[in-house]
């Protein structure tokens, strides 16, 4: 559903020619969003909690072997498959194109995760634990999720809000590049660019028009807000 009542449509461009797969974004996201620590047995049993992950693909055999990386996070689809299946409207579409998750409403049916083709929704099977004093790091801007709640990438909505509040205090418009999610902010090769897709002059809009653009599972018609730029050597120059 592309009904927008806001001037913004947040989107992201991930340039796979820049991405080195280093994982800085993963830890930055975990720090920013109060994502609990996943112990070894939790991960072994498929209960890994992360809002962004790096997919690694091997290609070919020795000596003609390559490895490719793909950062995978919530694609904030405009026609999101997770939204219509939620019986309690916990998964909803925000006027700014964000795919929101209301923790208070979530009753833990996990239908949304089941329906997400990108497998980016993670479920809290247990209450999170932080041995003292590790809990002092937790950010007051982000809810700590409890047992039985689904969670996923929010495009750092707390940063978007903070940015907008700051701009309105100063009585000006939000500048391009002023709001950055934690992943984009930390990415050393600047592979992740975030911004307003409604503004044709924003950096993200310009990059989204690149001939290298593609979106994941375009054929499913989910209309993701995350646009990838092809990378990887001889096959795809410039």
């Amino acid at each position, binding site marked *: 559903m592309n009904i927008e009542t806001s001037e913004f449509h947040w989107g992201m461009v991930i340039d796979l020619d820049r991405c080195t797969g*280093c*994982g800085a974004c993963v*830890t930055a996201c975990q720090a920013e969003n109060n994502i609990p620590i996943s112990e070894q047995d939790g991960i072994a049993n498929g209960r890994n909690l992360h809002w962004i992950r790096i997919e690694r693909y091997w290609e*070919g055999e020795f000596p003609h072997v390559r*490895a490719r990386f793909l950062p*995978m996070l919530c694609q904030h689809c405009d026609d999101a498959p997770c939204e219509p299946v939620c019986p309690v409207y916990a998964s909803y579409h925000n006027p700014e194109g964000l795919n929101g998750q209301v923790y208070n409403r979530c009753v833990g049916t996990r239908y949304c995760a089941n329906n997400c083709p990108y497998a980016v929704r993670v479920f809290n099977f247990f209450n999170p634990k932080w041995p003292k004093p590790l809990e002092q790091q937790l950010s007051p801007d982000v809810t700590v999720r409890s047992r039985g709640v689904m969670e996923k990438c929010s495009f750092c909505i707390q940063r978007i809000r903070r940015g907008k509040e700051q701009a309105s205090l100063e009585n000006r418009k939000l500048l391009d590049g002023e709001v950055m999610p934690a992943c984009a*902010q930390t990415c050393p090769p600047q592979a992740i660019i975030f911004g307003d897709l409604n503004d044709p002059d924003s950096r993200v809009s310009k990059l989204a028009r690149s001939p290298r653009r593609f979106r994941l599972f375009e054929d499913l018609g989910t209309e993701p807000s995350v646009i990838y730029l092809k*990378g990887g050597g001889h096959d795809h120059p410039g």
Partner: protein
Amino acid sequence: MKRRSFLQLSGMSLASSMLAGCRKGNEKLIPFLVPPEDGAIPGIANYYASTCRQCPAGCGVLVRVHEGRAQKVEGNPHHPVNQGKLCARGQAMLQELYHPDRIKQPLKRTGIRGSGQFIPISWDEALKQLAGALAPYQQKEQEGLLLFSAPLRGSLARLTGDFLQHFPKAQHLAWEPLSPEWLQQGLFGNPGIPDYDLGNTQYLLSFGADFLESHLSPVRYGHGFGHMRQERQTVRGRYSYIGPRLSLTAASADRWLPARPGTEWALAFGIIRRLLQEKSFDASALQAAGLSVTNVTELVANFNVQRVAEIADISPTEIRATINEAVSISPALALVGEMTAWQSNGSAAVAAVELLNLMLGNINRPGGLYFTPATDAHISSNYAELTGLIERMQQKKVQLALIYGCNPVFSIPSDSNFSAALANIPQIISFASFLDETSLQADLILPDHSNLESWGDIVPPAGTRQQVIGLIQPVVKPLHNTRAFPDVLLALAKGMGGNLAMQLPHESYLQWLEEDLIKRIPDLFIGDRRQQMDHLLQQGGWFGPELEPISPKALKRPERVVSPEFSGAQEQYPLQLQVYASVNFYDGRSSHLPWLQQLPDPMTTVVWGNWLEINPQTARKLGVNQGDLVEVSSPAGKLTLPAVLYPGLRPEVVACPIGQGHQGLGRYADRRGENPLKLIKETEASKQRLTWGGTRVQVRRLAASSGLVTAGHAEGSYHRDLLGL
């Protein structure tokens, strides 16, 4: 009560309660009568600039602090080293501050060494004991005092130097495994490390340099890499990697040349030969460096494509294509790294790549490398000094060891017998923040502050053309009863009296730091000193003007490179072991942080453990599957590790990351995985320089299950074609 008055009363009380409800609440926020000292305002976050110490690179950070608690570390956008970017290790700095297993007060050993039995003591008592232990070494002839630390730079180096002057025979050894001493001993013997201008180069050739994960300044080079690839309108920089393992850094290359371990240099000679043939080399640079064309021509004469291909065991087509690219695309920049330097022929191989850079005309030009003069005090020791020290320790010539900022028991191969030699030292005093392998051996522990509680400065060893002094400031009040190492030195000086107290009368390290900064950047402190210092702290340090690059002189003639030597008989140990610094844990110093333990290794997606990488062809021959438990044995020792089938590895090579296998270091690192340094066999050559790439091993399958946990499917979550990658 009458019915009427009851209704009147109840009506009145209802009305008054409703009226009270209608009244507006406090319209003003009442300010604090006594504002909190640290200026914390509820709901408002402060940002403090500081510097990261998770590796020596010295990236600038901004720490978001909310009501006295550090919440998030971000890159400092104005810092010349990292330009607002940060790696996963830097992000995880917070967990070091809030780690549940930090040492919370001074400890004194009660059980046997290594038992972990300590009792808490007061700082007064700890300082008294330390002063008592140090006092005899102030005499002229008294030998046996050792300070073992990580390499020190800037003001801490000066303070330590000044302190140790009063102990005439004291020895200071400053060593860490990934210190680029091999680069400083290369062709030019330059004390400063050159700045590689990755961002503006058009062709990048990495000789075993994993510059995106652990080599010198990974965040800076990561930033430069992005620039090289896609920041320029018309150019996409090309990049080839030569080395036996497809590392994270190599995975981003357009071409990977899987050379035999220790043979990468042959390609450099091949390119030099072509440059000479085509007369397209930089003759003036060669002359300026004091080298003659004839010598170089003689040296590389035989290195035609066929010969290079044979030495490195790569197809001649690939070699020819790479040489063509390197010669025709300009600027073309060559980097050399640990995978090449850690071989027995590493010294000559590093010199070969430096010669290549010289011939390509890369010295001091955009897209090349800049040599800048060393700008600051620097205490650093090399591997030969380390092995010399171990001998002295074995001969019981060290009586008192102070150990600060390093974990030598973990990061020195067991074959060099460091732990046994350490046991010979009657008194060991540690300044560690955690009970790691080394501090578990200590008799007295005086715990240091965490980085986010300390004052200090960092001079980035690599990666800027300008002079940079990054400042570290405390962003939160100390959590525990700890003290910064330099403050302990000053307190000792005061307590010990005499000349020492006269020369170091400073109340705190902050005072020392300020006075030291004034000496180093004098013109900055004209005017209000306090204001100037605040300004420096706000921006995260002093970023000076661009330095005039210097033309390097070759200290030695480039020499022939011999084949690398491997310890262990080939019949018994058919495979070659390559160890490498972990992407998540660097040299092992970060493995106690749960965020990093949980972060999947980018190449194997393994979490909470380590592993042995085996080429699938080799694994088939050995009957090993993904996740099997294997035994790796070398002439130095045996380890059991889970096997990971790794297509990006030469069939005769196995690889294992350094970083796991701690005995101690808190609940998240303790007894997790194995430390591959236990397999490294030391030889005569390795007494002189670090040669961790030169050990042969044997691999045997033990069992089908090993507890290996990977975060992703071995093949990735989806079929690659489906994603259109």
